[in-house]
């Protein structure tokens, strides 16, 4: 039983779980960005037909959850577990959003690293035999996040160049065991390749003492470094093992720091590095400064862009590392620093 644990804090799955369905939905601004043609759906209405920002995000999650289940060809009640979270206080976007789904829920908070955390937990449940089908889901909404963490939308202020732009978007993946994947393959698409989750590396809270919540890339880069470094160590890999190493939302500032840190430890990842926050927006045209952020940033980029690239076999093995900045308005006001966390997931096709 012990052999699934590898290194200090990674798991190498003996029978890797598979992704059989996914869905990505983003808002208008994200839909105007460079990844526009990859997303499954772009919604022009920032309210998603709701009355408040919080309700909008709940509707976003509900829609993505149902569409992801549909894309896998399952019925809602067939999913054993839903692992989901968001950025709002007490996870209200998730709890109100998935209320109508008939799926048992584990609500989690990993700040913007939630997609990595939820996939880690869902695949562990599936591989451990505790579920045959599980779903990982998360979302973020620009206006809801601004309201909670920064200023009201119409308040006039200047955002620093290191600041990121919270993505309005959501992504979900349906994860199943090998047996279910085989059934799925027979029934739906015998030709298409299936993406499997071969391992995970769980991050710890890393604090390098940065207090500037408007420079989250610098807050989170040490956490991403910690996870990537331990992943490479635990599995005994060189960076060349991966076609891409993709972080969640470090942005331009965090990118430079991360590459610098890993180089210092003898790992050069610059030529295979991507950041979802950098990919999702066009910095010059869309005025997003350091890039996109939020749970939805890595979730929608994974389900929209990365999985599609992998299905085309352009990338065969990647390390997906969503990154989260652990702060609340209270912790910030009380003078705390902004620690980071990251979760690594190895995807192979």
């Amino acid at each position, binding site marked *: 039983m012990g052999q699934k644990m590898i290194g200090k804090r990674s798991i190498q799955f003996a029978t890797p779980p598979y992704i059989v369905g996914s869905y990505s939905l983003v808002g208008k601004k994200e839909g105007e960005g460079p990844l526009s043609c990859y997303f499954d759906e772009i919604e022009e209405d920032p309210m998603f037909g709701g009355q408040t920002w919080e309700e909008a995000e709940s509707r976003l999650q509900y829609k993505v959850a149902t569409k992801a289940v549909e894309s896998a060809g399952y019925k809602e009640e067939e999913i054993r577990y839903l692992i989901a979270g968001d950025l709002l206080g007490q996870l209200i976007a998730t709890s109100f959003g998935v209320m109508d789904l008939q799926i048992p829920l584990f609500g989690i908070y990993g700040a913007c690293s939630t997609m990595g955390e939820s996939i880690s937990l869902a695949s562990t449940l599936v591989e451990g035999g505790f579920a045959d089908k599980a779903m990982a889901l998360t979302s973020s909404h620009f206006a809801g996040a601004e309201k909670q963490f920064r200023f*009201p939308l119409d308040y*006039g202020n200047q*955002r*620093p160049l290191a600041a990121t732009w919270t993505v309005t978007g959501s992504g979900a993946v349906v994860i199943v065991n090998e047996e279910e994947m085989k059934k799925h393959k027979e029934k739906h698409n015998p030709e298409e390749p299936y993406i499997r989750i071969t391992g995970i590396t769980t991050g710890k809270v890393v604090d390098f*003492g940065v207090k500037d919540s408007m420079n989250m890339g610098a807050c989170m880069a040490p956490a991403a470094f910690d996870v990537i470094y331990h992943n490479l160590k635990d599995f005994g890999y060189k960076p060349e093992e991966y076609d891409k190493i993709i972080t969640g939302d470090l942005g331009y500032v965090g990118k430079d*720091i991360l590459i610098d840190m890993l180089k*210092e430890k003898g790992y050069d990842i610059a030529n295979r590095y991507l950041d979802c926050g950098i990919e999702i927006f066009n910095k010059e045209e869309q005025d997003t400064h350091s890039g996109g952020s939020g749970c939805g940033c890595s979730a929608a980029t994974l389900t929209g862009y990365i999985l599609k690239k992998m299905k085309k076999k352009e990338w065969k093995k990647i390390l997906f590392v969503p990154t989260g900045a652990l702060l609340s308005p209270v912790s910030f006001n009380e003078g705390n620093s902004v620690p980071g966390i990251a979760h690594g997931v190895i995807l192979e096709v």
Partner: protein
Amino acid sequence: MQENSKNEQNTNSKPTMKDVLNQTDPNTRQQVYNQYVKDITPTHNWFANVCKAFLIGGIICTIGQGLLNLYKAMGFNEEVAALYNIVTLVGLSALFTGLGWYGKWAKFGGAGTLVPITGFANSVAAPAIEFKKEGQVFGIGCKIFNIAGPVILYGILISWVLGVIYYILLRLGIV
């Protein structure tokens, strides 16, 4: 001990990632990392920002002067005209906040939109709009001065302190 002081010396110049990662003391590492982050983080060009703030702030104040002159020309005395001027500026600022324009000007003008009274009006109108959904009492009522609250509180406090000082000086016959 000697090595430690050597590392600290390094922090005075621009620290590199090597300095950060080689630092074993967590507190010093935080300091060195913060300095490293500061060095590589891009910032707005302050001179360009000052010019933009001057332009936008100047425009707002010119409009204010124009309104003052207009009200005076309508026959109001200085004090009443100034009051009407303020009311008009605040009203316009709230209106443009609601239309979503003020935020765009502020993004360009920075302190130019913050310092005039229109900035204050914006900081009250914006939370009112945002928190309306949370109800008249707990939403608008509790949160309308979310941003402007400190200005009001400490504004009143400072005027009280200055008043006391003025009173004492007056009693002492200094002023």
